[in-house]
């Protein structure tokens, strides 16, 4: 394919040929990732903030990247199986007489509901915020925890 493209467009330089190779390599990496079970990209809800969730027998662990907030500016609430993270990220004004070369950081409101697969202990949720990462530990409800069953 690369060869064909280069023949079709004589001006297509080596650079783009290498770009193609690079893209193919990345696609392969992604495919392998999915096979191994680390499916990073195919699923995200498209709602800020993006979250990573893991679980053990007792708890769900939720983490989200929220740089530049204060812990009091993040609201977390929970009902039944649902956990809501909301707040507003403010980008402070740098004053009147500044000239911007680049402006990539964005501020705004966010409000995200996460539906967990099991009931949760709403009263025992713990959250911490450090280095811009929000970490929430959500204990599973007693009925949702796995039980060992002994065979008589």
């Amino acid at each position, binding site marked *: 394919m690369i060869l064909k493209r280069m023949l079709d467009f004589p001006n297509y330089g080596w650079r783009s040929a290498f770009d193609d190779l690079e893209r193919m390599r990345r696609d392969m990496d992604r495919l392998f990732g999915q096979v191994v079970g680390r499916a990073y990209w195919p699923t995200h809800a498209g709602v*800020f903030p993006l979250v990573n969730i893991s679980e053990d027998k007792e708890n769900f662990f939720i983490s989200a990247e929220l740089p530049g907030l204060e812990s009091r500016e993040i609201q977390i609430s929970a009902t039944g199986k649902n956990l809501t993270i909301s707040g507003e990220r403010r980008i402070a004004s*740098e004053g009147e007489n500044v000239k911007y070369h680049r402006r990539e950081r964005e501020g705004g409101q966010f409000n995200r509901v996460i539906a967990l697969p099991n009931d949760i202990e709403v009263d025992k949720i713990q959250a911490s915020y450090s280095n811009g990462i929000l970490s929430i530990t959500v204990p599973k409800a007693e009925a949702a925890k796995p039980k060992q069953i002994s065979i008589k």
Partner: protein
Amino acid sequence: MAEIKELQAKEKVAATVPPEQTKPGPVFNPNVDILETEKDIIMLADIPGVKPEDLVIDLRDDTLTLTGEVKQASRQNAEDILMEYQVGSYHRQFTLAEMIDQNNIDASLNNGVLRLTLPKAEKAKPRQITVRAG
């Protein structure tokens, strides 16, 4: 007052010039604001997860390099059920057009946001030039 907008979820962008790494893993481009006042060049960068001791800021000649490593504490016996964002290091490099007073650079890291103040060297500061008639 301006209307408050909703924040959009965005995937991280891979670093354009990945540094040579000793440990394998993804490297991302942090979002930055770069602004200029009369005295300083200020750079703000979102680098969530980077601890102050894992951040390296290097200014050599006119090239400013930012490298932040994210060390993630892995939980034993915990199983991933949803991975919406990737965790990796941050790397970005800029070429500075101005002369910087290297002795008075100030950097602070607060809640995942780096604020870097690079004071302009004396000769780079704007100066009013009066034209004499004669």
